[in-house]
């Protein structure tokens, strides 16, 4: 039978009691069932039930297994333990090389602990480091908690904004519909009564709608503001590596390459007896997006850029 199917201590079978749960203890990772844990460890720490395993186990350290592979389970436990102590961030280093060195150190410790290499020495190293950097570790912990809080706030605000926007859209659409109806009714009224003024009620309604929608818009804007503030708080957290990078050139849509030299001044209309007529008489031009102004622009650009003449300079 598969070892996963029954508890090696009490031999209870998973098939017969499907409710049973297996627990492990990070001391030795030997698996026993929940009821055995209750039976053996409720009176205080005791030895592991497995033959030849002399580890002393405590009840409160037992936990359910997350990964099928015990070696992975063990590595995750070790890692979380080490990371609790080695909790510096990239921002805490001024040099990328130092940071990499630090990460390397963490990996070495994890590797040693997982694969049982120089256990005692490594444990001592870990403990020494913890003692030496107690204050910093605490600080980093609170920092991380703060950061997580900001991130959580940000996600919350963003979902709120999205909902708000959608609601705004829906309401605007509905109000438009209502307004249209009201206007139509007013028009009919007007035609019947021949009074020149639209009824008071409709005008009132219009201003009301306007006021409401602008209030909603304001609300959305406020939310956006808040989100931006949070983002800035997240982004400006570190003073380490980030700030040592030379300041970026600001973003420009055209990469600083927007052509502002104008060889010519463009007029609204140009007289062209053939083309003007041709375009205005054939509706397929407009339907295909053709605009005769583009053609005039092209002609002027070609005429002047080729010669590199600025008309205004030439005149003066």
């Amino acid at each position, binding site marked *: 039978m598969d070892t996963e199917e029954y508890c090696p201590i009490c031999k209870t079978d998973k098939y017969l009691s499907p409710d049973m749960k297996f627990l492990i203890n990070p001391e030795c990772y030997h698996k026993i069932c929940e009821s055995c844990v209750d039976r053996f460890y409720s009176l205080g720490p005791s030895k592991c039930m497995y033959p030849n395993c002399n580890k002393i186990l405590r009840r409160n350290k037992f936990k359910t297994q997350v990964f099928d592979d015990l070696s992975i389970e063990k590595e995750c436990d070790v890692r979380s333990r080490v990371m609790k102590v080695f909790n510096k961030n990239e921002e805490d280093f001024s040099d990328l090389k130092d940071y990499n060195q630090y990460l390397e150190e963490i990996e070495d410790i994890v590797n040693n602990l997982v694969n049982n290499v120089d256990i005692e020495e490594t444990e001592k190293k870990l403990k020494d480091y913890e003692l030496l950097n107690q204050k910093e570790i605490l600080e980093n912990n609170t920092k991380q908690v703060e950061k997580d809080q900001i991130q959580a706030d940000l996600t919350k605000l963003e979902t709120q904004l999205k909902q708000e*926007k*959608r609601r705004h*859209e829906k309401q605007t659409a509905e109000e438009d519909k209502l307004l249209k109806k009201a206007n139509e009714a007013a028009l009919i009224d007007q035609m019947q009564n021949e009074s020149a003024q639209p009824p008071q009620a409709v005008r009132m309604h219009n201003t009301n709608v306007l006021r409401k929608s602008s209030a909603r818009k304001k609300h959305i804007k406020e939310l956006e503001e808040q989100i*931006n503030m949070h*983002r800035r708080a997240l982004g400006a957290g570190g003073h380490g590596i980030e700030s040592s990078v030379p300041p970026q050139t600001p*973003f420009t*849509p*055209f*990469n600083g*390459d927007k*052509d502002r030299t104008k060889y010519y001044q463009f007029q609204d209309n140009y007289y062209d007896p*053939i*083309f003007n007529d*041709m*375009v205005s008489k054939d*509706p*397929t*031009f*407009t*339907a*295909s*997006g*053709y*605009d*005769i102004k*583009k*053609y005039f*622009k*092209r002609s002027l*650009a*070609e005429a002047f850029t080729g010669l590199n003449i600025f008309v205004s300079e030439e005149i003066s």
Partner: protein
Amino acid sequence: MTISYTKEKKVGEGTYAVVYLGKQLPSERNIAVKEIKVGTFKDGVDMSAIREVKYLQELKHQNVIELVDVFDEEGNINLVLEFLPMDLEIIIKDTSLLFQPGDVKSWMLMTLRGLHHCHRNFILHRDLKPNNLLISPDGELKIADFGLARSLSQPNERLTSNVVTRWYRAPELLFGARHYTEVIDVWAVGIIFAELMLRTPYLPGKDDADQLTVTFQALGTPTDKTWPGVSTLPLYKSLHVYPEPSRAELLNRFGAASEEALNLMIAMTRMDPNKRCSTEEALTCKYFTEYPPPTKPINLPMKTQKKRESEEDYESNKR
């Protein structure tokens, strides 16, 4: 000092040209040489070669492929082009790569900058698709393949509407318009934008008729009301009228898109060419300035094959 070029490896062959990889000597710069086949055409050199030389020698921009040189060898025309090992299609299709919103923004930005340079010089590209957007080793995107390019038409010129690869063809082209303008390129970029977010072609029509159906299913059928004069276009038929998608539907379709990204895409894929945005409007829209900033080209996702090869070399050297 004379400059010479080597052809080292044949990398591709099209209907009218053979492409080689090579080096510029003595600078050792990597280049690609496009050798135009002459003699196979009755009327001399193929049209697209002429177009390519004609427009590329005018256009010098960071996001447009550079025509380094043109030379002739035994009566064959050779175009010396910048060496660009990757294209956007390969990157989109590589499912092992993950795109961040900033990555998509960066590619869009570079495409639009390149296209803006073409348009301000009154040049229509007419064949934009991911396959023609090449990527340099340092991540810069460059518009390539000007074989179908031409300059903005005069009113008395009638252009062929049979341009642009089908999936990226603007509706006015599908209706057989003969006086279209540079906004057909904007449409193609809009569809590429969608493809970057979906990671699959947005409007994959099986044939020209199907392309109309697919396009209108996705974006609504234009009528004379929404697009004045559309019924005067040669191939306009009374089609099944699909409703225009609501904003909520589009949001649903592009789950990863921000509001501003969606605004830009809607502006670039408007049916009526008169209402579609220009490259200038697209570049100045809010999408490019909102968070997150566009990724720096050098940090964009790249196919890793090359890297792996060099790692293997390294490993075998160690042994």
